[in-house]
């Protein structure tokens, strides 16, 4: 009887039922779409940040150099014979490593951070810039060469990376040729090269690249792998940390620490603990970095989080209100019917149950339709949304992972793959990196289930209002109503 009565009643007021279900569907569909868009934007932001941070890194720790220590690590020419002057017309070539704007910190700090309770893992890296300068010593009389010649410096970024764990820039990439660095390579002169840099400089597995040192001497490294780094990564060459420390004369030092928190909710606590452990360090999280992101990605994030959410909430509230009004109106039209049922001995709760059942069916129908609408809306976003760009602004003291762009000759990231020339000219502080990401709008089962639950709640709220009205009916008054 319950289902028969329910089915027949909904069929009788089919138009009204469709309006209620449609209203709920629209509200719920919008919520699903906006949630998917927000998730897509967050995913894009994570993608941007991961391309800079490396997957798994929640926090980076750096330290600004002491005032007066030299922004570029005290770049000096190391001559073969100190005190002697190269002969006029002779060719001088110097290949130096520089730490740039990050001051070295003890590698022991990495272990100290790793021992913090809320930290899942920590890894240190030494971010360097290799600057090769060659020129002909001017001097002598006039004529060709007499005035000397100076070739623009050739630079590329180097990251000395730890070989344990999966934090840092190298694990974020995909090896496309050869292999990655292994623990056994800790003291070897081997390197993994970024695919964009390799393509532009015609480097392949087995090639040899020259890496400078603090003293200006050159060491030849064998390329054992080519890695495709996420868009925005600024490292050209990866070598073992111990070798980078030895070449840069910074034994036991790193200048970038990557930290993974135990949980997303623990990032704030980890940040505070690190700041307490290393008071002079600059501790940067994804959240603080995200606030510096500009570009169409930031606009999309703002749109999804503010306008999108408010719009979805407003439409949903309107749908709930409409469902309530129509349900109460339907109950009002059935006053005599409910009065008759009470006269037949139906208790109020049975009548309320009937009204709630009808509202529940409408809620389920609206929810299912809304979930489908939302899924379609998200699919449209995936199909039609243009690629989004994100440019990371440069805040004082903030650490952008990769770091090389803050070093002389650092790469800006630029379009996917990086616009690297065969050794760029000296650029000084590079421009902020711009990353391009494609918008996704993922719809998870959890979101769909929550959306349907939302519509059901809306239906039950409407049914509650209608049922309350039905329960309050006095049979005599109800029967006195003219149908």
């Amino acid at each position, binding site marked *: 009887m319950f289902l028969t009565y329910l089915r027949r009643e909904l069929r009788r007021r089919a138009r009204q039922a469709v309006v209620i279900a449609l209203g709920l569907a629209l509200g719920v569909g919008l919520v699903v779409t906006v949630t998917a868009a927000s998730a897509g934007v967050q995913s894009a932001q994570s993608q941007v940040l991961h391309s800079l941070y490396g997957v798994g890194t929640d926090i980076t720790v750096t330290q600004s150099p002491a005032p007066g220590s030299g922004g570029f690590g005290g770049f000096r020419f190391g001559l073969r014979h100190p005190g002697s002057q190269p002969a006029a017309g002779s060719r001088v070539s110097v290949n130096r490593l520089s730490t740039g704007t990050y001051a070295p910190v003890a590698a022991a700090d990495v272990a100290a951070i790793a021992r913090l309770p809320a930290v899942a893992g920590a890894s240190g890296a030494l971010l360097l810039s290799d600057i090769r300068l060659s020129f002909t010593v001017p001097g002598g009389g006039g004529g060709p060469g007499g005035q000397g010649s100076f070739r623009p410096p050739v630079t590329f970024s180097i990251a000395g990376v730890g070989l344990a764990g999966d934090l840092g820039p190298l694990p974020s990439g995909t090896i496309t040729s050869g292999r990655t660095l292994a623990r056994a390579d800790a003291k070897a002169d081997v390197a993994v090269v970024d695919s964009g840099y390799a393509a532009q400089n015609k480097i392949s597995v087995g090639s040899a690249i020259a890496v400078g040192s603090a003293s200006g001497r050159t060491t030849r490294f064998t390329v054992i792998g080519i890695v495709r780094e996420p868009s925005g990564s600024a490292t050209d060459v990866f070598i073992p940390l111990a070798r980078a420390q030895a070449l840069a004369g910074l034994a036991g030092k790193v200048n970038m620490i990557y930290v993974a928190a135990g949980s997303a909710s623990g990032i704030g606590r980890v940040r505070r603990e690190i700041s307490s452990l290393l008071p002079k360090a600059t501790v940067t999280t994804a959240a603080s970095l995200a606030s510096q992101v500009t570009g169409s990605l930031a606009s999309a994030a703002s749109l999804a989080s503010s306008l999108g959410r408010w719009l979805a909430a407003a439409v949903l509230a309107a749908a709930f209100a409409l469902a309530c009004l129509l349900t109460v109106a339907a109950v009002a039209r059935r006053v005599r019917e409910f009065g008759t*049922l*009470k006269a*037949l*001995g*139906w208790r109020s709760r049975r009548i309320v149950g009937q009204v709630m059942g009808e509202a529940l069916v409408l809620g389920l129908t609206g929810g299912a339709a809304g979930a489908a609408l939302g899924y379609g809306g998200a699919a449209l976003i995936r199909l039609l949304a243009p690629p989004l760009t994100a440019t990371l602004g440069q805040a004082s003291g903030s650490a952008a992972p990769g770091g090389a762009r803050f070093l002389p000759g650092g790469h800006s990231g630029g379009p996917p793959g990086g616009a690297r020339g065969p050794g760029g000219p000296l650029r000084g502080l590079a421009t902020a990196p711009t990353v391009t990401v494609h918008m996704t709008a993922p719809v998870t089962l959890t979101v769909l289930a929550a959306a349907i639950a939302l519509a059901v709640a809306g239906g039950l709220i409407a049914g509650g209002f209608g049922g309350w009205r039905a329960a309050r009916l*006095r049979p005599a008054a109800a029967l006195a109503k003219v149908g």
Partner: protein
Amino acid sequence: MYKLTEVTKVYRGRGTQRVTALAGVSLTIGDGEWLAVQGPTGHGKTTLLQLLGGLDRPTSGSVEFNGRDLAGLREGEIAAVRARSFGFVFQTFNLIPTLSAAENVEAALVPLGLPAARRRERARAAVAGVGLRDRLDHLPSELSGGQQQRVAIARALAKEPSVLLADEPTGNLDEDTRDEIISLLQGLWAERGLTLVLVTHDSQVARRAQRIAVLRQGLLKISAEPPGEPQSPPGGSAAPVRT
């Protein structure tokens, strides 16, 4: 069966307006009696019927049914009494428009807690019992007025109540159908020995009852036995005449 003692019902209108539908009505109705309640429109007949059926509460006084004051019962208790003991027949039939004839009767059996199959069987038998075997699955909109009232009567009697309360059951019917319905009610009353309280403004209908009560301006007056042979049910006795 029924004992009404100084029952008053006052309706509140807008502001300070008051309408006294019943003014100190005292009445006794015996088991198996057929009482007709007559009177002009708006003089309290339907109000009296609603009080007898527990559909409303008096402003003062008591309405006792088998020794229990209906006004003192809680919602669940009064609903149970209506479900088992009272059958209603309304002037406008009051069938549920979305349910078929058999399903309308079944709706009256739902509160009894019968198994669905048995409920369905009893409902169909009740509809067949009023001569509508071939209309079991028809909606009210597919039935004539007389047929709808027959379904309403079947619905009222399917639960085998001890009291049948009919409020102008022929008010919306033509003369021929009116006679048909009254004859049906009379036959069922005689056959089942139930107590029948029938509100009507039609004197011809009222004359068929054992007793006639007249309501005017909320005041009740019991008339003498109607002219013609006493209409006593087989084995029953006429209820005492009281004012």
